[in-house]
């Protein structure tokens, strides 16, 4: 079989085409958002919110409401509860996050177990990228487009918020609003990505691309290009691998992203573990008189 066949054969199936389109959409939006999450230091919060949306999504399914609405409500509920516990007791933030998101996630699991449904709600937990319907794809595309548009329009404000919320406040912007906006986008994006990799692994798509891009550049503008491109390529590669290996697609999408991070972690020119030394060595060699 030629390499081209390796690429083309899966595409004769509609479900594979839908899977790849959905994955690319989710990967791009998650990767964009992840650039801010890793810089604000909200990786743990991303983990919490992406798990805590589960009961919201299940309730939305039961009530026939859009998944995004349920996710937003429970995303904000989780954050409010975490803040309340941290602010009114001696429990520290990491413990508060752990308590709230696991409890809400567990509530989601219980709700799934008592909800009769035609579609398997367990797909929300583990993702079901190969089972994405036309209607699912449309919903994902709409939510992703909203998140994408807001992120692009407000990107400079969000970067200012991440870098210096005091200055944002000093010039009359509201850091609280910008933080809430970022949280809302987080809940929205979690819904987009849970079809692809499931609730449990969403956080990978919300952290790894931004962290990877951060090791590759000192320019935030470039992070916003590198992260989505890398994430989309890795995710598509993951889908292909799952087709050829007949293994879990969500898991492979995340493994490929993690592998890409490992390579960058080691070999990134300026911020990589080994790359740093290689670059320095090359510079020394170039500086030696008589070197080419």
């Amino acid at each position, binding site marked *: 079989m030629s390499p081209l066949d390796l690429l083309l054969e899966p595409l004769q199936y509609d479900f594979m085409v839908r899977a790849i389109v959905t994955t690319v959409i989710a990967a791009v939006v998650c990767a964009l958002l992840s650039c801010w999450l890793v810089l604000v230091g909200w990786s743990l919060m991303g983990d919490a919110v992406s798990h805590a949306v589960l009961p919201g999504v299940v309730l939305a399914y039961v009530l026939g409401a859009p998944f995004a609405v349920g996710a937003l409500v429970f995303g904000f509920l989780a954050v409010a509860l975490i803040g309340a516990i941290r602010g009114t007791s001696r429990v520290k933030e990491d413990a508060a996050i752990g308590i709230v998101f696991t409890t809400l996630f567990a509530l989601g699991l219980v709700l799934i177990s008592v909800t009769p449904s035609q579609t398997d709600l367990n797909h929300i937990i583990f993702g079901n990228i190969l089972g994405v319907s036309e209607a699912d794809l449309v919903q994902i595309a709409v939510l992703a487009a909203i998140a994408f548009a807001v992120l692009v329009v407000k990107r400079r404000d969000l970067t200012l918020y991440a*870098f210096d919320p005091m200055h944002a406040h000093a*010039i009359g912007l509201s850091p609280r609003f910008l933080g809430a906006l970022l949280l809302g986008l987080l809940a929205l994006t979690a819904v987009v990505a849970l079809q692809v990799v499931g609730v449990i692994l969403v956080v990978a798509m919300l952290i790894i691309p931004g962290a990877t891009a*951060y090791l590759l550049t000192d320019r935030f503008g470039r992070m916003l290009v590198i992260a989505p491109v890398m994430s989309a390529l890795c995710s598509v590669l993951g889908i292909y691998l799952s087709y050829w290996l007949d293994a879990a697609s969500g898991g492979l999408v995340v493994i490929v992203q993690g592998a890409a991070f490992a390579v960058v972690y080691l070999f990134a020119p300026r911020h990589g573990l080994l790359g740093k030394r290689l670059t320095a060595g090359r510079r020394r060699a170039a500086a030696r008189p008589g070197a080419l």
Partner: protein
Amino acid sequence: MTGTIEVDDVVVRYGEVLALDGVSLSVRPGRVTGLIGMNGSGKSTLFKTIMGIVRPEQGRVLVDGGEPAAARRRGLVGYVPQSEEVDWAFPVSVRDVVMMGRYGRLGLTRRARPADHAAVADALERVELTGYADRQIGRLSGGQRKRAFVARGIAQDARVLLLDEPFAGVDKRSEATIVRLLRELADDGRTVLVSTHDLHALPRLADEAALLLRRVLFHGEVPEALRPENLARTFGLEEGVA
């Protein structure tokens, strides 16, 4: 003259801890005012109260004769943070940071116009960082980092500049540059309030000084502020206090 700061009988409490206990202070434009106090004396809290980040449980703050929120919306208030408050590994360039001073006057997406690029270039030139504009902010020396944030306040055209410990971790040469810069900004008619525990720079830097220990112990001329009995009270060295 615009840009006065009026702090009137302000009390701020964090839980059980009394951070400010009836602070009254009037800061005038065209002058550099030094705010002197040891760690925990309430300097940062006072700045946060002037900026409206911390709400006093008693008393009030007026900036330019009105509510601090109104002054902020008009872009009057510029802030230079302490070094520890900044993530120096953040992927922004010096130019990006200075441009953030212009955001208040930009539209929805904060897209810079030619006038904004010109203002940023002017500000960078004024703090002598023109050649460093494209560097990542953390790849500057301590003094250059401070100057970058002062440039942000200049690009903002802030009438009131609040600087929290601008001399911490700054070499002597940069300190002299920053002192000269702040003097020029005051001569422009701006209000410059500088918190510091660097008493050596004070006579060259400030026109007047306020001594803070949860309340204002003294506010007046610098030589008088530096008298041993005043400093002893400010730094808690008075007998029977420690």
